[in-house]
């Protein structure tokens, strides 16, 4: 890696990759060289289950502004969800 900026966490959920839906076990957020987007660096977000193979991965590359907007959306949505009292 060029930046060493990368954080991983255990997650529980499902993602849809090239082979269809699969259980997601790990989320990684990094900031490093983009693979596909035109930017030199990007937020690299992966939802993966490497026990199923390297291609069990849902990948997104975002610019920083998009990342901040996504954080706000997540926080707002989670707060609204918790306010409802509905179970997951």
């Amino acid at each position, binding site marked *: *890696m060029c930046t*060493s900026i990368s954080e991983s966490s255990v997650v529980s959920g499902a993602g849809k990759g090239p082979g269809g839906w699969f259980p997601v076990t790990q989320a*990684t957020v990094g900031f*490093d*060289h983009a693979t596909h987007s035109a930017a030199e660096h990007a937020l690299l977000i*992966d939802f993966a289950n490497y026990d199923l193979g*390297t291609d069990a991965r849902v*990948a997104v590359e975002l610019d920083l502004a998009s990342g901040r907007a996504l954080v706000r959306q997540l926080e707002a949505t989670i707060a609204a969800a918790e306010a409802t009292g509905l179970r997951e």
Partner: protein
Amino acid sequence: MWNSYRTDSDLGITAEITTFEGGDGDEIHAYVVKPTGDGPFPGVVVIHHMPGWDEFYQEFCERLGRHGYGVIAPDLYCRFGHGTPDDVAAKVRSQGGVPDDTVVADCTAANKWLRSQSWCSGRIGIIGSCSGGRHATLVASKAPGFDALVDLWGGGVVAAADQATPTRPVAPIDLTDQLSCPILGIFGNDDQSPTPEQVDVHEAELAKHGKDFEFHRYDGAGHGFFYYHAPMYRQEQAMDGWAKIFDFFGRKLRSQS
């Protein structure tokens, strides 16, 4: 130099993926390119960049091969599994990157592999870009047996102590006194990693330790300006950079053989 061959010369390469005994005795993949003929040819260890052991690097090796170098490019991510280069690179990223010690061990083994080939002259260079530039600098500072080093915009060669990670515990600049061969550095002045100021720091450290170094910096270029598959490509600067690589390797690996 580009287009400097004769049209009646014995020009060709063989290229293949093979396995060899890498660091710790692990069998890992390598992309190997050899010029046509029996040699002797100088050898080059090529270190791929952060995005992985990818198609760009296969073609990078082939270009060196067409200019008369026997090349081995170890798959530094081989132990993490297989898939498309970006998928494998993502898995490596999720685990903090490939450990420096593994890179040094694999490149040391690659050097040994080259020396064992009947066609190899015994003069060995090492080259890498991006994280590979940093890795190449690290390897040439920790492992013996290299005669020339090319650092292409290696990010993280200059790093503060608080930027150390478990996989990257040491900044290569802190090993400058141990650098065992001449170094060619190629950089873009618009790069953010390394910045021109970091290149200055590296250059000053090389001078301080009396090392044989040549640094070239290009205006109008940033990071990765050789990458013709990406918007960062800068044709004029890239071709001049390649000319400098062939000139440097020619002087350090051929004329002294």
